[in-house]
């Protein structure tokens, strides 16, 4: 069985969709050569009219893609650096996202934005290490953070076929994940549907993106002591509230591990919704980046800002013991 890497899954999904649908095209910096290692081979397969290397003009080519989408194409954009999303927030949140409503349903903007290597890339410091997926969820842009190669493949396919703008964060911490999979088994994964990676009965751990691997590891570590259910929302917005409710109905306890800054991160929303709408036997907890985190350069400082397994173990134990 072939061993599919996360990065190869990204490239394969884009290539398969370009093959299937001639309106799909790709824009980004250095994508012809494939510096981010997502797009190698696409230029040779599809030519420079469909695989377009752009100048360093993120705001310009982001709205350019919006215009192309309004005229019937399905552009895919690659950003090399997660922090570039701050630069193009106006173009995505204030332009692409608003066209459908503002035009009374006349317009659709099917653009997919992919950030390979989001979050901390050890040693890349303050302006290359952000993970702003919660920001897009807040404004209502469809936001996806796949944890595994087959989910990355399936979610990208669905994003490209979706009629709305979709931002896909491919966490740096997940790019090394590999999975044994038959290519023929790769299929679209619907947006807004979570996945239970491991069933459990005591505590639901919601983990986002690369942190799913950490949640699975601590679930192993705690097995015999605590039965942990690992819930991966896969899509941050729209969130699979029904899937979460089903898990909490079993466990009654909730921990979230989320690589967002704490205030207004998706972890806060998950806790708030669970507290408002679901039956919890104990106060829910979250493990996040600190408030307002700017990732410092030195490795020890960078790591000190990221949620980690030790914190998750501690919090999961506390939630398991509390409220009884």
């Amino acid at each position: 069985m072939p061993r599919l890497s996360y990065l190869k899954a990204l490239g394969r999904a884009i290539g398969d969709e370009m093959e299937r649908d001639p309106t799909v095209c790709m824009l980004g910096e250095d994508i012809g050569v494939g510096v981010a290692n997502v797009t190698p081979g696409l230029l040779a397969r599809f030519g420079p009219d469909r695989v377009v290397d752009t100048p360093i003009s993120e705001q310009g080519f982001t709205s350019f893609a919006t215009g192309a989408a309004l005229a019937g194409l399905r552009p895919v954009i690659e950003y090399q650096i997660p922090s570039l999303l701050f630069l193009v927030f106006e173009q995505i949140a204030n332009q692409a996202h608003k066209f459908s409503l503002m035009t009374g349903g006349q317009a659709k903007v099917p653009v997919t934005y992919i950030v390979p290597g989001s979050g901390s890339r050890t040693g890349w410091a303050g302006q290359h290490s952000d993970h702003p997926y919660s920001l897009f969820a807040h404004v209502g842009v469809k936001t996806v953070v796949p944890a595994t190669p087959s989910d990355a493949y399936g979610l990208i396919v669905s994003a490209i076929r979706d009629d709305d703008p979709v931002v896909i964060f491919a966490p740096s911490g997940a790019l090394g994940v590999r999975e044994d999979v038959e290519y023929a088994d790769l299929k679209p994964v619907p947006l807004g549907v979570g996945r239970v990676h491991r069933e459990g009965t005591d505590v639901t751990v919601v983990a986002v993106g690369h942190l799913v691997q950490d949640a699975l590891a601590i679930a192993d570590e705690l097995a015999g002591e605590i039965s942990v259910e690992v819930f991966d929302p896969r899509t941050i917005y729209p969130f699979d509230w029904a899937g979460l409710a089903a898990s909490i109905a079993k466990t009654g306890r909730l921990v979230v591990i989320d690589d967002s800054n704490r205030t207004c991160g998706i972890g806060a929303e998950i806790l708030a919704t669970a507290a408002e709408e679901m039956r919890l036997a104990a106060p829910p907890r979250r493990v996040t980046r600190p408030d307002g985190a700017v990732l410092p350069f030195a490795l020890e400082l960078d790591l000190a800002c990221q949620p980690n397994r030790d914190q998750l173990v501690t919090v999961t134990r506390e939630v398991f013991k509390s409220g009884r």
Partner: protein
Amino acid sequence: MAEVAAQLYRTVRLIRRFEERAIELVGLGEIVGGIHPYLGEEAIAAGVCAALRDDDFITSTHRGHGHVLAKGADPARMMAELAGRSTGLNQGRGGSMHAADFSLGILGANAIVGANGAIATGAAWAGRHTGTDRVAVSFFGDGAVSQGVLLESFNLASLWKVPVLFVCENNRWATTMPVERSVAGSITGRAAAFGIPAVSVDGMDAEAVFEAAQAAVTRGRAGEGPSFIECHTYRFDAHHTFEHKARLRYRSNEDVAQGRSRDPVEIQGGRIPPEVRSRIDEEIEHQLEEAVKFATSSPKPSPGDPLEFLYASGLRARTGVSNA
């Protein structure tokens, strides 16, 4: 040419009277939020859009009623949109600053200064990409030419020989900022720096604008790339109708008198026989009377579903109330 002259007159006169009627409705409270009147600049929209086909694209601005009308939108549905009615072009979801009619290639007015250039460039690129000879026009004011994303779009358009026409309506005032205090270098110099042929024309003369636009459109359809037209004009009225109450003193009486001394409606009106002119005037009065009636008697949207159309895919957002 006599037919063209009369047609251009009809358009400038329609825009003039539409704006005057809309200002009345602002005063009566039928249009909330006010408008940015296009009075004085009518010849530009009329001249440019006369050079376009129905399937060509335009992107417009906060001062956009003239562009939308000149491209052929129904004045009644346009007026209804300004009045926030469900019969409006955007079903009351866009209002004055976002009017759109995709069936006529009107990709919407845009309320962020300078934002539409990249969108028009992308739409024009997509038009060529799909094998058509459609062109796109981006309208913007002198205030936009110092916005980075617009300059980025000049670069992309020129690099990729995109059939887009950049039309700068230099009315000399960006809200209260005179052009001399906001533009270093020259406006056409910005386009020239990117290798885009740029001309300056008398923006009070619909026929002069039409001729320049025809040349640019011909160039675009022939695959020769973008063009830039700077139209010298003057904003006869307020930046926004709020000024009608809050008297702002930023233009001297002499400046206003000088600016208003050449009137695009009179200039074009003087080129057609008086009997033709008075017939057109009567027809427009009747048309706008009907438009106002249509707008003010149309139903308002039901507040029960304020976020209908938010997602082109039909996704519905959660309501703002828990468990609702």
